[in-house]
């Protein structure tokens, strides 16, 4: 039976989050925690593959206890089982340490039921790195297929998957062996409004929760802050553009005003001419 595991994360809603102007870090209390939007597409794709081929969809997350909420959201989308690893030892993990901890949990899940496919969102909206998925694939020695925007076929018996990868100027079709790891784009699917039975199931659902001690043999030096070689030397919030002028009136008037502004700014043309000269 096809077993798909989606790796997900609870993130602060960065659309409304405020930055602490002193430390330049996110003020996590200023925004509600949500399921990382890319991950909802990953879970939805897993659910769609299950309805095509049958099987089981599990989700896995690493996070503090309130992240149970994100797992419940996945159950609403249609996942069958949810696993969460939570422990103080995981705190402060960068993408390297995160992928290590998740790999340990995935190995334990695979002991319960062998894994055929791992699906991740393209990246999280709080970290924006997109490194954890490929990190897991490397550790599990699976082919990482990034930027996937279509799963054309999964063939468990013959052990292959055919997917489309989004490129800047089109897409490429890749055939990979199974098991493999996909990280998916947002346009791979649309997450529909969850059904009432799924809502009820999610409201009752209690995920399986593991701490470090439950994960068997584990190298503690590779966990959390200790296992994170990433050094953040400085962080800053992008500056909001200041000043500016709002053009008003009809389109024609606005265009005229804009041209007046642009045409009278000599330095623009001089710079253009200079750059053009250099290229020729």
């Amino acid at each position, binding site marked *: 039976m096809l077993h798909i595991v989606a790796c997900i994360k609870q993130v602060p809603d960065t659309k409304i989050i405020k930055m602490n102007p002193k430390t330049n870090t996110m003020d996590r209390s200023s925004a509600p925690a949500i399921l990382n939007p890319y991950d909802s597409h990953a879970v939805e794709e897993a659910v769609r593959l299950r309805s095509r081929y049958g099987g089981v969809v599990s989700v896995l997350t690493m996070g503090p206890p309130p992240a149970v909420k994100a797992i419940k959201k996945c159950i609403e989308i249609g996942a069958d089982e949810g696993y969460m690893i939570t422990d103080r030892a995981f705190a402060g993990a960068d993408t390297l340490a995160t992928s290590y901890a998740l790999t340990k949990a995935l190995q334990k899940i695979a002991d319960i039921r062998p894994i055929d496919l791992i699906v991740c969102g393209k990246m999280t909206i709080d970290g924006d790195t997109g490194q954890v998925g490929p990190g897991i694939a490397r550790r599990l020695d699976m082919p990482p297929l990034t930027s996937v925007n279509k799963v054309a076929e999964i063939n468990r018996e013959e052990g292959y998957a055919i997917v489309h990868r989004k490129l800047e100027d089109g897409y490429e079709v890749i055939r990979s062996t199974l098991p493999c790891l996909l990280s998916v784009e947002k346009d791979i699917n649309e997450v529909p*409004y*969850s059904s*009432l*039975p799924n*809502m*009820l199931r999610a*409201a*009752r659902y209690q995920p399986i929760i593991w701490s470090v001690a439950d994960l068997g043999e584990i190298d503690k030096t590779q966990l959390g802050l200790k296992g994170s070689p990433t050094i953040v030397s400085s962080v800053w919030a992008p500056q909001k553009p200041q000043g500016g002028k709002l053009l008003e009136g009809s389109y024609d008037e606005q265009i005229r005003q804009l041209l007046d502004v642009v045409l009278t700014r000599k330095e623009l043309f001089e710079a253009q001419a200079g750059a053009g000269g250099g290229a020729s």
Partner: protein
Amino acid sequence: MPEKFDAIVVGAGPAGIACAFELAKAGVNVLLIERGEYPGSKNVMGGVLYRKMMEEIIPDFHKEAPLERPIVEQRFMMMDKTSAVTFSYKGLEWAQEPFNNFTVLRAKFDQWFAAKAVEKGALLINETVVLECIVENGKVVGVRTDRPDGEIRADVVVLADGVNSLLAKSLGFHKEFRPDEVALATMEVLKLDKKIIEDRFNLEEGQGCTIELFGDATKGILGTGFLYTNKDTLSIGVGTLLSGLIKHKIKPYELMEYVKTHPMIRPYIQGAEPQEYLAHLIPEGGYNSIPKVAGAGVLVVGDAAQLVNAIHREGSNMAMTSGRIAAETIVAAREREDFSEASLDDYRKRLMGSFVGQDMKKYKDSTHHFDKFPQYFEKYIPMVNRAASQMLTVDGSSKWEKQKKIWRDIGPAKQKFKIARDLFRAWRVMK
């Protein structure tokens, strides 16, 4: 086959949560359905939570609930354009257990209250809109939601869907409410440093104060304004009958701006930063607007049943008590295995016998009275302000002369008689 619960409660406000909490506590398999992202996300009130009725549901709630401040002082300000006559009571017996009431922010409080109901065993689902009740053979047997496979069944459905209850309306329990039966309230939450709040409102650390605003706060339209202290925010708002806004052609936000910039209010909120803007309808039709509240397989509670005492700005307490009585009625009906209208009508009887029904009855004509005779707000409050100014301004004229002037200001004998009649009438509707 849709799943079946013992009871479904539609709407997670004070009435719905109280009902679900009590049902779950009694071992009833109850589903609580909320349309917002979480309980409280769409709920609005000025912010006074009454201790007594909350305690009847969760004793000692004040030890763990997210409350803002216990209220130790209540001020009533009768405002004119550049003056105000204030009456206030401050009592330190309210600063300690058992307390009288608290300010709360609903987004936080309702979430906590709902979590308590879930702890007791209620099942909560959010972001789900109930479109209609499923009626079979004249009996409500469940609800239909906006979700795929969205039907769900129950022995009894409790409608706690708020003012303008579309579900009760579609069952024919009431008609569309008239503009003089509902008030439109707008409010803002303004951020202000804790210490500054305590200094400005003359409070010890952690204590709170409420100010009710009458008269010019609503430009003389029937309604009230309020200014409440939270931990590190102020809640300021104004509510008037919808009919008044229509008649005076004033937009709610204009009235809000007017209150915020009023010279009697401005100093309190100076430097405070707007954090949230909310608006909501309040049922203020009173006793005569209470719809049918019990039918076969269905009960109506809280705002949906128009249970608001506009004179004393009480609503959440009535909502909770109605939810609790509804739950007790359901538990008793389950023992009888009888969810007919006759059986569930016990709820109406008990509700009307409680303080909820009694208070609603006591003030049954008050809103309409003050709406019908606008002179109370338009004329008498300015008059009181002028009288106070006259009496308290030391300008060399004797107090006798001042009293004469005040007496003249009231108008000719006919006018004095009219005022006496109005005061008597007001006393009659309030007594």
